[in-house]
């Protein structure tokens, strides 16, 4: 998963509004919480797993049409990972999304309480 394709290394991380955030609500009854109309921006919450450092800024607002590769390269820069280091992203604490999957699709299917929770780890966590 160390490979990256689309949307590599955007040079202006300041565009991503990052804020301090509390622990998001527990993942229950996702369907009722989801807004039915498609959103143009989606809020991501990052959760560190294993020995991976916790981010100071855990919330990120990202355009719905962006791909997971964009989030992955953002996190890699933020965590100052070298090309040789791996970064694994997980949705639902269960699976790694494909790097060309859109944020919109993941939010539609796995969003909770209006946010998409993303777990990240520098070592493999959930198979």
């Amino acid at each position, binding site marked *: *998963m160390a*490979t990256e*394709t*689309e949307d*590599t290394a955007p040079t202006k991380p300041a565009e991503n509004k990052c804020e301090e955030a509390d622990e998001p609500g527990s993942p229950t009854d*996702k*369907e009722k919480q*989801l807004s039915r109309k498609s959103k143009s921006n989606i809020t991501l919450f990052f959760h560190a797993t294993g020995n991976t450092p916790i981010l100071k800024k855990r919330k990120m607002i990202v355009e719905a*049409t962006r*791909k997971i590769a964009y989030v992955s390269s953002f996190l890699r820069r933020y965590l100052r990972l070298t090309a040789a280091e791996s970064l694994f992203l997980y*949705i*639902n604490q*269960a*699976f*790694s*999304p*494909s*790097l*060309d*999957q*859109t944020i919109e*699709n993941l939010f*539609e*299917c*796995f969003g909770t309480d209006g946010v998409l929770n993303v777990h990240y780890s520098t070592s493999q966590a959930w*198979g």
Partner: protein
Amino acid sequence: MATDREVLRDLWDGKLPVCFVLNDEEVCDLQTPEAFYLMVPRLSYFPLVWDKVRKHFIKHVHADHHDMEMWLDYNGTPLKWHYPIGLLFDLYAYDTQLPWTLTVHFEKFPENILLHCGSREVVESHFMSTLKEADALKHKGQVMNTMQKRDHNQLWLGLQNDKFDQFWSVNKKLMDTSSTDGEFKHIPFRIYCSDEGPFIQKLVKPFTEDSQPKLLQNLIEEIFPDTCKQVCVITHGIELSLDVPLQWMSEHMSYPDNFLHLCIVSNTS
């Protein structure tokens, strides 16, 4: 659970004749190498079948490129190795004459379009992740989580070695609905429109609120609420009738990754 076994078997046996040719610009011999023909399973992935293709062409390209990653294009469109072969054909070449002619490249890897695929392990990890995602939609991931590692291996080896019984002896557990009143929580599907762009994936239940089975027509209406034109939906090279129930489709017409991969072509008739 999947009961119409003949359907499963027929889809599993679906194959496509492919003619591989080396990109002219990369030929370093005086003569262009001969084309390489293969019958490939629709349900498989190109990196699982292209070892022989690489071996055939590698001696005709410049030695500097021998370690490069191979990739394919059809009519100038780079083909994503992580899409099943049958999906790629339905998406880009549905009305093409067979054999399906693909161009083999070793140079100029299209970094912005394709993911890298260094080995079969990369394909395996992509495949298993997609299976887990599908199970998260169907059973909240409970079936994959309770399986043993050797079951996971069997799914992968069954696909890799084209062994129907090996694959389905485990996959039937993922298609099981006996503990959930005969239905999945949601139907894992991806919809592709031929005009490039990413696929569409949403939460869709197999039954309506008053317990009526949803049909393919209902799915299309949920995804494209504003279209009134007729659409033609293709999967496994078959034009689907819009009155097929979603639950049956999911159990019988999903690819081995447990997703329905549906291609939309606008109806010209």
